[in-house]
């Protein structure tokens, strides 16, 4: 391993949150950005080859050592897992904010069909969601987006790292509706045959 890689390793190892490339360049101003980039790549590979319990991963725009999920059951024996528990409504709201940001509460509520005030407050308190500003429309409603903590907790490099909605749809493609013909839909089929299409 190059000496620079080892230096970077020490910095990432002792940091309590992901260390960004910019921050590394700032701390190691005697090195070129490109050198630092290469050294990080070298480190990543070396941890992969080692195939130990943890790896160097890129999250929330920085680098951090993280354990692999396989060791969860052992790690939790001595570290209390800060059980991140999400209710379905919190997850739905979070997903909408993540994919539609910047988004207002009204927009979230329209998509979910229910009031989201309470959920939004919880997400704000948990710092998963943050206020980005105000929308320039009548009433100047607050607009929301996801935070850095969101990326850290969900292990995302950046927002582009979110699975696309198309990919998610593909997962759901096993149609629930395959056997539709066999259903005793009776009268309802009649109705749909005479759909009143307007001009």
């Amino acid at each position, binding site marked *: 391993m190059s000496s620079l890689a080892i230096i970077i390793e020490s910095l990432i190892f002792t940091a309590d949150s992901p260390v960004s490339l910019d921050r590394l360049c700032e701390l190691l101003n005697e090195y070129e950005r490109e050198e630092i980039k290469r050294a990080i790549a070298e480190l990543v590979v070396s941890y992969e080859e080692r195939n130990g319990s943890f790896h160097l991963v890129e999250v929330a725009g920085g680098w951090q050592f993280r354990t692999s999920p396989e060791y969860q059951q052992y790690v939790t024996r001595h570290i209390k897992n800060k059980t991140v528990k999400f209710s379905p409504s919190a997850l739905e709201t979070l997903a909408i904010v993540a994919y539609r940001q910047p988004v207002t509460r009204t927009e979230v509520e329209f998509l979910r069909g229910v009031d989201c005030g309470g959920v939004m407050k919880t997400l704000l308190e948990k710092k998963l969601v943050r*206020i980005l500003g105000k929308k320039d429309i009548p009433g100047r409603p607050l607009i929301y987006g996801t935070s850095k903590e969101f990326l850290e907790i969900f292990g995302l490099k950046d927002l582009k790292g979110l699975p696309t909605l198309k990919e998610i749809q593909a997962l759901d493609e096993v149609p629930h509706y395959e056997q539709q013909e066999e259903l005793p839909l009776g009268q309802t089929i009649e109705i749909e045959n005479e759909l009143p299409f307007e001009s």
Partner: protein
Amino acid sequence: MLTPRREDNLTLDGFHESYSVHLDKFEGPLDLLLHLIRKNELDIYDIPISTITRQYLDYIKLMKDLNLEVAGDFLVMASTLLHIKSRMLLPLEEGEEGEEEELDPRAELIQRLLEYQQYKDAGMVLEARALLGREVFSRTCPEPLLLAANNEEGPLELELFELVDAFRSLLIRIPAETFHEVAAAESFNIADCINEILSLMQDRDMLHFDDLVNEDLTRERVIATFLAVLELCKLKLIRIFQGGQHGNIWFVPAVAPDSAEVILT
């Protein structure tokens, strides 16, 4: 509100027997509709509106029979369904048959259901990820070390939300108003507060939120100060920081004091 996770297996066969369990399970009218569609194995693109409406209304009736509060959102959806149903009963105008599929009265609802389904799934996909603190762990510094490090590193950038929180906690500390007391004629002017903060800033690099209001802690004073701080932020004259988590909130001049004065006068 983080309520307990819902069970994965939804069955509505015992609809009438086990209503109380099911009532908690729907996140809203769209969730209920999706459930009804899935339960009846219907094609989401071709919902038999009368069946769905009937079942939906049955469900609401059930909620009412149980004297449960029916959320307004559910009623809005009920009226939407009835509206769609009534539009579908209108006779077809001749010669325009099948021209524009989008004008199916159900189209908007279908769109919303599909979108909702998408985000619901997205939420589950997110939840299925290996989460930090649940499946995946990073090295953690012990709390005191972390605090020390933060203090050395200097202030953290602060979100507006936390400023509002600080303000709220300050307001709580203020004794309740006694209304029979006749208020002094003194009134607080935001401009005065701004000037005061700026002059305090000239002596010190950093100001504490509490410093600003300590000498006389009244509701008017705190509110005027808070508004003044917000105004100063807007004018980009100060920056707000927090020293560590749950730490004190500090204000730091964003520009040199001289230029600040120039802007104000």
